């Protein structure tokens, strides 16, 4: 029996290369998409699996309920959160991770890095894989630093770095630190990939007295460990009461802490995909993988049942020779199993070959490691074989059910009956519905991504460089001013400013509420504004339009903010607000707001100007209501803005670097363009759209293969009929029309099914964007036209060649 299965399998390729090839190609492509997207899903859902403690660890997340702000969970909490938690719940096991910028000195070179300021138990808490050093004690000494293998190679040229010294500058000044341990590099899918770690000391936290216990701030990541999920649930149940207790009257008299913010325990495994939009994107891509596999299996069933007709005679002969239906089913399932196995191998090879391309298209770093991924791959193979065998049951049963006497008596190839025909047509409709839907969605994705990348953001993003290194803790006021003055003198520079209202940069985001005279000052009721401090010439430079009043002017003493200074009591500070703030405050026009005063952050402010709204952040985030303050010498979290014209970006960057080198040689130079900064919001959308496009393209290809197989089978079955029609006087064109129209019907029906589904899915996807395009009927028409063109192209050639056959030859056809 096994030999018989092997022979039939082998001959299906050597004797029917077209059928065998199409069948294998369709299956392999579907399996390849399934494997590739399973890899993606595994990567995205496998964050922190390196930690043996993953299941026990939770992170603190915070949800805010401020008017005008979204209430999604943000990972992190205020600096002093774990201290306050442990005061109430001494049994808690916690560690903190506060990521800070740091400068590494290597000879005269300086490098910008992030350093994790952590509790000494951090390494053992996570079970961090150690290369050298003792995890339990490595972080005890505040003069020690723990580094990753990658950083060890970067700074010492070897992973044997324990005992060596690294000079770092940060808020605590420039000091040498001794490397006490080297940790192994964590896998790509980790949000805890830390290159440098140091102990978070009480001296360091003392420098943050203003903000450390500021309820409502998000400063660091706090981790908790529980032996059982029940313990985590028990604490979660008490966190609202805890927040109310600890916040007290900090949010205003009579305002319960939990009415404005909630602390949430997020399992470590869920942290990476905490953003529901991101999670939905991954689930969608996973679904695309499953759909591709299903389409490929549909193909398989279609081609197998179509060919079943051609094999009917073989079945009849085998039956007359005493084959039982069960033996025949086993034979056909055996053949299916071998085909699936081969397709899996080909699919896996396709993935291996195209993985660099997939990674490039999707901005990913997926990899297959057969030593580690063997079990996972075996699992995938199991899924494919199981799904494949279920799919193969129908053709196996259909084939084994042929009645030998009828088959042998007829000269015509059986088509599997009306049910078989209906089933095949239904499956082709299903495939093309998926294709039309995928095309429609692709068009929508492309248009929306084009839109967000080219939409008017309310400011001019071209020719704008942002010098981030200005906000380094080691940069003093003289250096800030000196750099700006020197840049102003550079050729091609048209404007220079400094501000912490930065396009595409959410490192420092401040929100407070604003209250008009006579209104109740309550955090739960008065509008929230996002506030920034800007330097001279900021609005002119960035190109945010003035709607009423005036921009800031250093000549007006009241324009100067109190932030960073001790303001004299009773002083009124001038501010500029955005159109949205004016609306939220209830003014009818921007003009009406000018000259009005309000309470803001315990100070009185007067609106002197109203500017247009500007979209600085993610296109899915609503534009915040904005309040700008002015500082002639901004220091707080501000970056340098350089507007230039008439020269390439790279030349401009180089000129800025040279100036920086002279002004601040000890601080690494860091510059980005506004484009680059904003692109990090667009890139994930683009990447996912690319991946979806690859999946949809392959799905369309599978659909074509299926349609071609069906058409080939059908035309060969109807060869005699075609010959007869020609004998009776049918022209070539009439025959071609007859054969192709038959296949256009399923495509049109598929479109009717796909349109509403695509409309719903596209609407759902677009709803995540604050600035979304409208759904155009053209998307649907173009998608259907493309599907029709594909179908015509696929079937037309076959129909033409069949219609061109001489009738005599066709009539002799058996």
């Amino acid at each position: 029996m096994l030999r018989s299965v092997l022979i039939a399998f082998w001959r299906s390729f050597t004797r029917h290369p077209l059928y065998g090839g199409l069948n294998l190609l369709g299956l392999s492509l579907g399996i390849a998409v399934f494997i590739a997207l399973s890899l993606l899903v595994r990567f995205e859902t496998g964050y922190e699996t390196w930690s043996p403690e993953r299941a026990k660890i939770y992170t603190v997340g915070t949800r805010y309920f401020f008017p005008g702000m979204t209430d999604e969970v943000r990972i992190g909490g205020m600096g002093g959160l774990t201290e306050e938690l442990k005061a109430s719940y001494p049994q808690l096991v916690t560690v903190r991770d506060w990521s800070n910028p740091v400068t590494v000195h290597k000879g005269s070179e300086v490098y910008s890095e992030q350093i994790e300021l952590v509790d000494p138990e951090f390494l053992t808490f996570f079970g961090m894989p150690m290369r050298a050093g003792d995890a339990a004690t490595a972080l005890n000494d505040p003069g020690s630093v723990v580094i990753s293998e990658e950083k060890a190679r970067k700074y010492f040229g070897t992973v044997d770095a324990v005992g060596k010294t690294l000079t770092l500058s940060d808020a605590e000044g420039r000091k040498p630190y001794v490397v006490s341990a080297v940790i192994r590099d964590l896998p790509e899918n980790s949000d805890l990939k830390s290159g440098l770690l140091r102990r978070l000391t009480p001296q360091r936290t003392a420098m943050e007295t203003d903000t450390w216990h500021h309820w409502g701030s998000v400063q660091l990541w706090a981790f908790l460990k529980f032996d059982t999920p029940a313990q985590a649930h028990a604490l979660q149940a008490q966190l609202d009461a805890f927040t109310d207790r600890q916040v007290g009257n900090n949010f205003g008299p009579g305002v319960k802490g939990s009415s404005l913010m909630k602390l949430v325990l997020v399992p470590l495994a869920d942290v990476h995909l905490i953003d529901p939009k991101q999670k939905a994107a991954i689930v969608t891509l996973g679904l695309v993988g499953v759909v591709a596999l299903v389409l490929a299996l549909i193909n398989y069933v279609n081609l197998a049942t179509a060919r079943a007709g051609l094999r009917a005679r073989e079945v009849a002969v085998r039956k007359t020779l005493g084959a039982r239906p069960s033996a025949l089913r086993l034979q056909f399932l055996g053949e299916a199993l071998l085909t699936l196995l081969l397709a899996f191998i080909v699919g896996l090879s396709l993935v291996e070959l195209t993985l660099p391309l997939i990674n490039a298209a999707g901005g990913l770093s997926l990899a297959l490691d057969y030593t580690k991924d063997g079990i996972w791959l075996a699992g995938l193979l199991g899924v494919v074989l199981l799904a494949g065998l279920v799919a193969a049951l129908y053709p196996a049963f259909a084939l084994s059910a042929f009645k030998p006497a009828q088959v042998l008596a007829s000269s015509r190839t059986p088509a599997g009956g009306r049910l078989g025909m209906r089933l095949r047509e239904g499956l082709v409709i299903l495939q093309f519905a998926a294709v039309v839907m995928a095309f429609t969605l692709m068009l929508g994705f492309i248009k929306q991504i084009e839109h967000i990348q080219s939409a008017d953001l309310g400011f001019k993003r071209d020719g704008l460089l942002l010098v981030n290194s200005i906000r380094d803790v080691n940069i003093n006021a003289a250096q800030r001013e000196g750099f700006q003055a020197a840049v102003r003198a550079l050729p091609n520079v048209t404007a220079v400013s400094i501000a912490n209202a930065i396009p595409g940069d959410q490192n420092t985001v401040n929100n407070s509420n604003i209250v008009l005279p006579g209104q109740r000052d309550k955090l739960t009721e008065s509008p929230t504004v996002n506030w920034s401090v800007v330097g001279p010439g900021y609005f002119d430079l960035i190109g945010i339009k003035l709607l009423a009043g005036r921009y800031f002017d250093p000549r007006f003493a009241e324009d100067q903010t109190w932030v960073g200074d001790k303001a004299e009591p009773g002083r009124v500070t001038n501010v500029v607000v955005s159109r949205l703030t004016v609306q939220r405050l209830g003014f009818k026009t921007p003009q009406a707001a000018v000259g009005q005063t309000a309470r803001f952050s315990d100070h009185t402010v007067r609106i002197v100007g109203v500017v247009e709204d500007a979209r600085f952040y993610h296109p899915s985030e609503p534009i915040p209501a904005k309040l700008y303050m002015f500082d002639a010498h901004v220091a707080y979290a501000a970056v340098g803005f350089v507007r230039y014209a008439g020269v390439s970006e790279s030349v401009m960057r180089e000129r800025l670097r040279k100036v920086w080198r002279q002004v601040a040689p000890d601080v690494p130079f860091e510059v980005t363009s506004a484009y680059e900064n904003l692109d990090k919001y667009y890139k994930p959308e683009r990447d996912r759209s690319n991946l979806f496009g690859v999946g949809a393209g392959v799905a369309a290809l599978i659909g074509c293969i299926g349609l071609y197989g069906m058409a080939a089978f059908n035309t060969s079955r109807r060869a005699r009929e075609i010959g007869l029609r020609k004998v009776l006087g049918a022209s070539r064109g009439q025959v071609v029309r007859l054969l192709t129209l038959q296949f256009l019907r399923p495509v049109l029906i598929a479109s009717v099914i796909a349109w509403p589904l695509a409309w719903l899915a596209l609407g759902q996807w677009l709803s995540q964007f604050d600035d979304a395009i409208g759904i155009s009927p053209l998307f649907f028409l173009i998608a259907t036209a493309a599907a029709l063109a594909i179908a015509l192209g696929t079937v037309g050639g076959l129909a033409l060649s069949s219609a061109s056959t001489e009738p005599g030859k066709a009539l002799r056809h058996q």
Partner: protein
Amino acid sequence: MIELQNVSRLYRSDEIETTALHNINLTIRQGEFVAIMGPSGCGKSTLLNTLGTIDRPTSGAYLFNGVDLAKLSEAKLAQHRARHLGFIFQSFNLVDDLTIYENIELGLLYRQGQKGSRRQAIETAMDRVGIAHRARHFPHQLSGGQQQRAAIARAIVGNPDLILADEPTGNLDTENGAQVMDILKGLNASGATIIMVTHSPSHADQASRRVDILDGQLVASVAQML
């Protein structure tokens, strides 16, 4: 060996009821060579298919060595065909994708308790019909006569008790037809029971008995002197 008692076969479609066989009573003894004759559509092939158990009688009994086959399950009938029957068809019905050797091997594939070497049995069968030199060829590479000889080899490879031949010479020229008849006669001479449907009176004359059918009914059963 075979006894048909009042065997009838009706075909029903939505509107029409056709009687293919009507109250057939027929006894065939071991070692007989029976030729069934009659005009097209008279029920010859239905009778042969019924004898071959790939069609079931609507009523009546079919005794094979005393066992009523009409009452057996599909699986038992399949077993019966594998053990006792060999089929030869007008259009050969070789499996296109299998070589001649593999086609002949099919005749053994579904037999349980096959004794001795399979290869030897196949080679013997090929030698008997003179097709051994074509073992590795595919059916379409052979002439009609060669294909039919291969089909005969497949029918006899398992040494069946009964060979059913449905117009075995219908698609062959005179010379090849004569060769096939010679082989069948040889098989009969060595003990095989053969039932053959044919349109050719001269081929029918070479059988030991001739059965005539008309409109689904047996009209004559005549023993012939060879």
